């Protein structure tokens, strides 16, 4: 990811062309609901096929769950 605005997507690539580093960027975009459907599918396929990203992806899920918990975004927690 560069410091410049993204005016391209990863949509034109095959799942195998997504690197772990790119998958982390995509996880962040997905958190902000800014990842397109095709990229979301490619991310899912990459995470499914890559054991390291499988674990890292779970860690990000847990990080986001904790943030949501911290900020009472989950219903019925207060």
């Amino acid at each position, binding site marked *: 990811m*560069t410091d410049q605005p993204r*005016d391209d997507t990863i949509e034109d690539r095959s799942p195998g062309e997504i*690197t772990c580093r790119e998958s982390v960027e995509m996880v962040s975009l997905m958190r902000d609901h800014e990842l397109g459907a095709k990229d979301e599918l490619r991310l899912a396929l990459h995470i499914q096929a890559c054991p*390291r990203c499988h674990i890292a992806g779970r*860690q990000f899920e847990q990080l986001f769950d904790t943030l949501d918990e911290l900020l009472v975004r989950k219903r019925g927690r207060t």
Partner: protein
Amino acid sequence: MNVESDQRVPSWLDAELAQHRSFLMKLARGQLRDQGLAEDAVQETLVAAWQNQQSFAGRSAVRTWLVSILRYKLIDALRSQTRQPVTLIDHNEYEESDFDVLFNHANQWREQPEPWGEFVDFADGPQRQILQNQLMNLLELCVTKLPEQTGRIFLLREYLGFETGEITDHTGLQSGHVRVLLHRARLSLRTCLDTKIRGTTS
């Protein structure tokens, strides 16, 4: 707390709320960039907490409850403020190369990440709240270590729920830059939490 006499806070609650004041002030000051406005927002938060203490059912930490109240105060204050430009010339801000150590030449994870396991996969039970609070405390600690401007953007998004477009409006940053800062903040937090959890469980 300094409230009117007819709003006197019971001493036990006063003490409970006061211990979170510095954290709330740090959060408010970081966003509002104005000591007076930050103090007002925190004071209003503490008074609102006291006035609505019946709504606190005790299933979350007191701090969580207070942050949820402060969030609305800050959102109101920020939306009524003029644009607060963010400058990113601070040498303490992250560079993409700061994360090179995590990845190899093919941009694959250099090391196999280790599952966080039971530290975060807490089942319902007496240990749940303890573990959950521990994890939240670790996360808060990691958030305080974010570089100033990155932390500010991260808190606008994650704590205050601003959309990317609102952040660009408020800070003058381009949307791509906001995404980069959020990505780096999250990767940094994941790395920080990983280090701390390994330190706790080893």
